[in-house]
């Protein structure tokens, strides 16, 4: 078989697949950000912290209640989502009339509080979280050894993204949501409780972050700073994709994961800057982002 720049094709396939795994986290997080932004016009800086809390809830549930991974997939989004609802009700709600940047500042503050709190409680070296027994081991695909859990992450996050897309773009509930984004007053006039919808949307977006956190727990260490740097990359993903469309943010997330994966093979030194470089290029060529509508 041919070799590409000294990399055998087998290895290349392996790296592509791994890129896809990273991409699923980018996709899920940028999806949540896009959903929240669409409805609240707020960039949720606390998204990374909420992702981290999701992982911690999973760890806590296992440690103290003996609830396994599968329960956590259900519990963590609910718990963290509920927490999000409280935040929205008590704080974010007061800011809707103001400049959107205040929302960013507030959620940034919240992110600091949450991270600081967890650092105090749990330290930063991280806590172990085992891979669920049924997903341990892996498949030898010939070109690579694919751990079962990683395969599961790809499949599961794809499903979550598609379901979310379907909910928002293809159902009646979603159409209310989209309408309320365009013109909240009008939708309110039709007798739909817009403030409650906003609250629930925030809860849902935050829940998605928590779900991603549970997915991440067995792969990465459960640690208070796991979301801090990730969120900045996700911001870049969001800028590249533009927040105009749900599908756009999902596609961008997966695509950038793959690109980053490839960079790790060809030029590992740049693997953590490649997304930012792409962002700069996209800004030069298409300032509104790949899928964005020009404001």
């Amino acid at each position, binding site marked *: 078989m041919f070799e590409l720049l000294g990399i055998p094709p087998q290895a290349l396939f392996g790296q592509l697949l791994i890129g896809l795994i990273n991409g699923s986290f980018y996709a899920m997080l940028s999806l949540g950000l896009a959903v929240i932004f669409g409805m609240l016009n707020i960039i949720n800086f606390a998204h990374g912290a909420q992702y981290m809390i999701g992982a911690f809830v999973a760890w806590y549930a296992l440690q103290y209640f003996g609830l396994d991974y599968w329960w956590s997939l259900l519990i963590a989004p609910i718990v963290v989502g509920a927490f999000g609802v409280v935040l929205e009700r008590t704080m974010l709600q007061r800011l809707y009339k103001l400049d959107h940047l205040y929302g960013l500042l*507030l959620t*940034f*503050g919240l992110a600091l509080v949450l991270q600081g709190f967890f650092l105090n409680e749990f330290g930063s070296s991280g806590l172990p979280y085992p891979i669920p027994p049924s997903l341990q081991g892996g498949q030898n695909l010939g070109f690579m050894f694919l751990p079962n859990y990683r395969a599961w992450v790809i499949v599961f996050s794809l499903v979550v993204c598609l379901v979310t897309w379907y909910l928002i773009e293809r159902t009646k509930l979603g159409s209310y949501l989209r309408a309320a984004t365009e013109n909240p007053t009008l939708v309110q006039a039709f007798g739909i409780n817009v403030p409650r919808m906003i609250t629930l949307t925030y809860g849902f977006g935050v829940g998605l972050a928590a779900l991603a956190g549970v997915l991440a727990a067995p792969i990465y260490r459960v640690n208070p700073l796991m979301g801090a740097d990730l969120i900045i990359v996700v911001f870049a993903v969001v800028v590249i994709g533009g927040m105009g469309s749900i599908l756009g943010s999902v596609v961008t997330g997966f695509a950038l994961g793959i690109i980053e994966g490839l960079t790790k093979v060809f030029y590992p030194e740049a693997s953590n800057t490649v997304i930012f470089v792409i962002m700069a290029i996209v800004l030069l060529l298409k300032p509104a982002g790949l899928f964005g509508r020009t404001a």
Partner: protein
Amino acid sequence: MTTAAYQIGAPAKTTTLTHQYVAFGIMTAFFVVAPIFIYPVFLMQALCFALFACAFNLLIGYVGLLSFGHAMFLGTAGYISAHAAKVWGFPPEFAILTGTAASALLGVVAGALAIRRQGIYFAMITLALAQMIYFFALQAPFTGGEDGIQAVPRGTMFGFLDLSDQMTLYWVVLAIFLFGFLLIYRIVHSPFGQVLKAIRENEQRATSLGYKTDHYKLIAFVLSATLSGLAGATKAIVFQLASLTDVHWTMSGEVVLMTLVGGMGTVFGPIVGAAIIITMQNYLAGFGEWVLVIQGAIFVVTVLLFRRGIVGEIAAYLHSKSKSKSVPAEAEQAA
């Protein structure tokens, strides 16, 4: 209350010009006397951060652009001036100038990219660009990675000011700070500054009046970057150290916090904010990550309860008082 008050960085019902002269006098007097009873190194730190916050405020307070990546200018200037002083053997004045120039250059590039988007996107883009600079600083050989550039010589300024003497250094830092502060004051109160404020209030309107708003925004961005660079370069010479701290995103967050607490769009707010945050960090250093929690909480409380910041609130109070005495509002309102 106009809608402008809801806009970020909008004028917090301003002080009068006399108030500002008095405040400037008090501030200068304070910094002249302070080293007698406050540890001078701490004061120099506060001065560097105050200048940094003022430079940041130029952008948020007067153009309404929230940069979440200003650490890149502080840090880059620090690295370059430290490198210039240590490796190239530049005297401190040239080292500082070189660092500042580097930040100005970076400001041109970053600004040209970032001003293509507004509002939240602007914030996210600056953050992402700063993160890129951070990774660069982490990996580039000359920055020394996690160690930073250490043991930077302070040298002799202009050939006769020996900066290894702590008090000489202090006066130099104070002079640099006052220079930066007055420069910003000049910029804000120039016709150029008026255009910036017009852009902040309503960019479309400014455009329709024939202003090339992008040019103005870029110039303001570069000015802000340059002055942040001046602060960073000075800091590197003072502490004889340039490190990753100054390019990390937490630093970008800190300068936002300083300005927010002190009062965005006020002349003295950033200085007060910087003093408060630096003092707090010093006193709470022993409490580890609680500092993070407290800073976050201050963010939250300030955004929810007093968005005008400390100086903004005071100014608003003075203003309402002078109004009740039915003193006509000054023509020149100094936001």
